[in-house]
């Protein structure tokens, strides 16, 4: 056990991404693999998991108290970072990345380091597309919006079905709402290539380091924080993924 006390960082830049999403840049770069995350300590409130959207950035969507506090931070604010944690993506060959909403965060550094060939970026509406400009430069970007304000009118799976030759990709990295990810896993599975899928999962996390068990998944007891957060499709196809998860008390709830 080595000293894993949170590293206190200062926010040096706050970028508006969408009305509910902001990116915070801190005064310190961590040595990350794309897909790794950290536990972000919002002093006095809580500590929550966040993917690194770059070695010195997190991209936060407001959903509750901790995220509200995070996106309200101003330059000079201090937060604590424990990480990088987890395994990250292991892209090989031709890579397709698929992101829904703020799920783009952990995939963005993958695109930045040149690993992504094609990127499908989805959001509810044009104003909620995150990192689109930059991804346009870095990848062959395809966009989907639920309301059709940009790109494909519908879900990212629609782009997948209509514009993508799945079998031409060696690695398919995915992050987004669980039902979206489940839809993609089903398609990979149908194509017999579930193992090419790399899914960045979300579960309730408390310790972030594989000790407390709050993020363990049925039926194998894999810990999302330590064995993941990235799992291949075949690791999770016969699991709770897509059907239920547990809350802070360990009670099951549908996803």
């Amino acid at each position, binding site marked *: 056990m080595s000293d894993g*006390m949170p590293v206190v960082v200062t926010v040096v830049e706050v970028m508006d991404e969408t009305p509910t999403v902001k990116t915070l840049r801190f005064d310190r770069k961590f040595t990350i693999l794309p897909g790794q995350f950290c536990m972000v300590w919002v002093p*006095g409130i809580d*500590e929550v998991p966040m993917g690194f959207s770059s070695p010195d950035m997190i991209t936060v969507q407001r959903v509750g108290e901790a995220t509200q506090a995070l996106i309200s931070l101003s330059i000079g604010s201090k937060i604590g970072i424990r990480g990088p944690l987890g395994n990250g993506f292991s892209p090989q060959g031709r890579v397709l990345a698929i992101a829904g909403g703020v799920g783009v965060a952990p995939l963005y550094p993958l695109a930045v380091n040149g690993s992504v060939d094609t990127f499908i970026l989805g959001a509810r509406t044009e104003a909620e597309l995150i990192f689109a400009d930059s991804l346009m430069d870095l990848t062959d970007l395809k966009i989907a919006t639920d309301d059709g304000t940009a790109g494909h009118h519908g879900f990212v799976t629609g782009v997948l079905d209509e514009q993508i030759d799945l079998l031409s990709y060696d690695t398919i990295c995915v992050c987004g709402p669980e039902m979206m990810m489940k839809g993609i896993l089903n398609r990979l599975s149908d194509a017999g290539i579930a193992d090419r899928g790399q899914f960045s999962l979300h579960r309730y996390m408390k310790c972030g*380091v594989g*000790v*407390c068990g709050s993020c363990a998944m049925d039926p194998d*007891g894999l810990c999302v924080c330590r064995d993941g957060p990235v799992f291949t499709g075949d690791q999770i196809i016969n699991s709770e993924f897509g059907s239920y998860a*547990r809350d802070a008390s*360990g009670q099951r709830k549908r996803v």
Partner: protein
Amino acid sequence: MITLQKELVHVGGVTLDNHLILAAGVLGTTGASLFRMLRQGAGGVVTKSIGPNPKEGHAGPCLVPLERGLLNAMGLPNPSKNFLQELEPLAGKPVVVSIFGGKPDEFRTVASWFEGVAAGYELNLSCPHAEGYGAAIGSDPAMVRACTEEVAAFGMPTWVKLTPNVTDIGTIGRAAEEGGATALVAINTVRAMRIAIDLRRPVLGNRFGGLSGAMIFPIALRCVYDLYEACSIPIIGCGGVSSAADVIEMMMAGASAVQIGSAVYDDSSVFGSIADVLYSTDGVSASGIVGCAHE
């Protein structure tokens, strides 16, 4: 190093596949993670402590890794009665259900849910960071005795887990023994804290918590040693065990079996790793060494 015979282990009424037990609250919230530890070589597992009502636990940070230790204040998150569902796939396995409560009858209530399901109970009278629970009542011998009596009345194996944060652990051990405990588990975490100096505030959401892992091993060993002198029921050593040598050392201090928690942090298959070194065909029977350092 001396090695042990691989044998079924009977401790305080529970039969285990070997001497290595997963400690309460570590990878113990779901049936699947408990099962994983059994598959990886644990001879038995203790569940997360279950209480009378579902609890979300303390705000984070809940756990901080330190050098050779972990500092945590989870705050006893647990799904309460719903935990029954988690144990379904584990029927017949050596699963001990850890219970906490604020009063003796709460212990009874929770125990009643798991009657016939659990291989035994473990009373958490020792968590140092949950107000009104754990050590708050575990440092009062009368309370310890009363809570133990309520649960022992089910006639199932009843382990009582003790806190090191008392002036004399022997007194508490004797109270549990008098209350009908079939074994003592020592120790729970040691009261501790850290401060994040750049933020000028305690690092845990709960401000203070409990220390576990290798850094508490010499403290746990001493507690086991003291209890072995003070009590006559079996002792299960817990606290910082992370190697086969640690297991032997705990046994020589007086432990009939050991629990392992924080060591999963450095090695998620620690049970298998330890068992590989601990057991051999020409090993001795554990009974030959338990408590031998008292001679």
